[in-house]
């Protein structure tokens, strides 16, 4: 593996750590198996690409892509909470709908951003890290989002959100509005995924309507590799696991691509990914059963916060 391949693995890994953070919020914190991400990832890319080719400032365009992702999450949440559609189906419906919506937004299936100004352009001159510029910027963004999620889940709203995902009945007893928490959590989760799509389009220079295929699997694989390595008992550990898991997963792929490690070739990647995820899910279930489902500390903190508030 050469330096370029390593930089590519880190770049893709850091981009997908944002997806992993989003998947952590939905799958783990909210217990909402959300498949919206296969649609919100290209949605973030599409919205950003259209904004950029229409002369919008790239930073604002990135914000637009993030917000678009958040709206998609809100839609899935709405279908589930207000219209009482099964969470898995709600995500699938939004994902399917987004394919058409993304085509409408872009007006064609593929928009090239080659030669356009992106948020990476100004830093190429300032930082002067050559092929590592994107990696450095993405590391900053990924860490910022990791600390944002850490901070958010420690606020009163964040604690309520965790309680709602862990045990809705008990959360309701503590006067937590479960429906509102699902909407908020899904919005933040898919906002992160939209941001990932937006940054992917800008770093690779293209938005394509088919680029969302397999986003959920990659995000889950990253999340689960991180959990297996670091554990998910504490939020800060779990979010760090998202970053490390995503980068590691991309290194597995780079290794498979570079020269058949363990006889694995590029065409076996999907099978390998499925096996990695299946094995890791079984492992993390075993761990969960051992440690028990409820987290007394979480409930004590939630009670304390609401007491303090009066």
């Amino acid at each position, binding site marked *: *593996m*050469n*330096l*370029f*391949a390593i*930089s*590519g*693995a880190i*770049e*893709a890994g850091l*981009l*997908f750590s944002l997806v992993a953070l989003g998947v952590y919020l939905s799958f783990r914190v909210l217990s909402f198996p959300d498949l919206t991400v296969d649609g919100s990832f290209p949605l973030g890319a599409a919205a950003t690409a259209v904004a950029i080719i229409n002369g919008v400032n790239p930073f604002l365009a990135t914000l637009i892509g993030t917000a678009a992702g958040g709206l998609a999450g809100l839609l899935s949440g709405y279908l589930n909470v207000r219209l009482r559609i099964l969470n898995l189906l709600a995500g699938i419906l939004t994902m399917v709908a987004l*394919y*058409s919506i993304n*085509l409408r937004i872009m007006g*064609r*299936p*593929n928009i*090239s951003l*080659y*030669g356009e100004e992106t948020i990476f352009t100004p830093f190429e001159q300032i930082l002067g890290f050559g092929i590592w510029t994107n990696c450095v910027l993405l590391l900053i963004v990924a860490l910022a989002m990791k600390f944002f999620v850490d901070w958010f889940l420690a606020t009163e709203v964040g604690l309520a959100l965790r309680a709602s995902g862990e045990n809705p009945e008990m959360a309701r007893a503590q006067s937590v509005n479960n429906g509102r928490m699902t909407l908020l959590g899904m919005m933040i989760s898919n906002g992160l995924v939209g941001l990932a799509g937006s940054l*992917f389009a800008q*770093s*690779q*220079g*293209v938005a*394509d*309507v*088919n*680029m969302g*295929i*397999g986003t959920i699997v*990659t995000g889950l694989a990253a999340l689960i*590799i991180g959990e*297996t*390595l670091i554990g998910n008992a504490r939020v800060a550990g779990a979010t760090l696991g998202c970053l490390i898991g995503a980068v*590691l997963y*991309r*290194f*597995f*792929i*780079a*290794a498979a*691509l*570079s*020269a058949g*490690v363990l006889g694995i070739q*590029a*065409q076996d*990647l*999907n099978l390998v990914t499925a096996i990695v995820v299946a*094995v890791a899910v079984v*492992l993390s279930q075993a761990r969960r059963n051992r440690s028990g489902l409820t987290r007394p500390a979480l409930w004590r903190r939630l009670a304390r916060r609401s007491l303090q508030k009066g």
Partner: protein
Amino acid sequence: MNRRDITTLAAALLLSLPGSLTQAADVTEIAITYIVDHPAIDAAQQGMIDALAEGGYTDGDKLALTVQSAQGSMPTQLQIAKDFAGREPDLLVGISTPSAQALQSVAGDRTVLFSAVTDPVAAKLVETLESPGANITGTTDKQPFEPTLELIRALVPDASTLGIIYNAGEANSVAQAEALAAVVGDFGFELVEATAAQTAMVPDAALSLAGRVDAILIPTDSTVVSAIESVVNVGTKAKIPVIASDTDSVERGALAALGFDYYQLGWLTGEMALRILQGEDPGVIPVGALDTQDLYLNANAAEAMGVTLSEDLLTSATKVIQ
């Protein structure tokens, strides 16, 4: 596998990576990548490899060939492109639009050759088809629709509406639909579009055209071509002639096609690769396109769809399937 095992495995993988390829100085390195495994893409790739061999570059001898599929995944395509860029090959080749774009974004001053890109200008790969401008050139699979429309006019003289089925999510298909819409009027047709996002939606798209069109044209769209039988089925029942754009579909039941041979397109790409390897500037090599089309006819389908094949057509056909 516990936590330590995974750590050990990861460390072992990372340590095994730096084993770089050692190459003799007089070996030319070419790296080919494509977005997804597909008969047309495979044919283009094979044509290119055969043309290179004809020009004296045989894999394993004077040529070191690396071929990688992105398995339909854009993130994997990005990683393949970066990996290729780091290998410093003599030539980077991307078959399909997203693959060419991924290589372009990492190429720097390396030379990139593309194939099977329908609209290289819209994809921002080249400035114009005549003079690409930068270090990227290649071949397009864009077909002139005029000969096909003439063929449809000859097969169904009194047709006034022409249906087309394509996947609106494929850049190549949308480019074809737009090109077709621009010229159908000149041949006295009115265009009716139906789209299918997945193979499973092709039968519905075909049914939606029944009773509304006098003939159906299928472009080189992998989604629709994968389910060509279901279009043929509707065409047979509703007596609507189905005309394809690839010869393989005629063998699978379509009435006729002015075929586009991806193997020949790959061969053309290979010839351009040879010119570049001999030192020609890719910026001044015009984007290549095929100007020959083979006529395939299916006599069974003609009978089933209620079309009489004229003597003229039968004699000019490259192949008639009985």
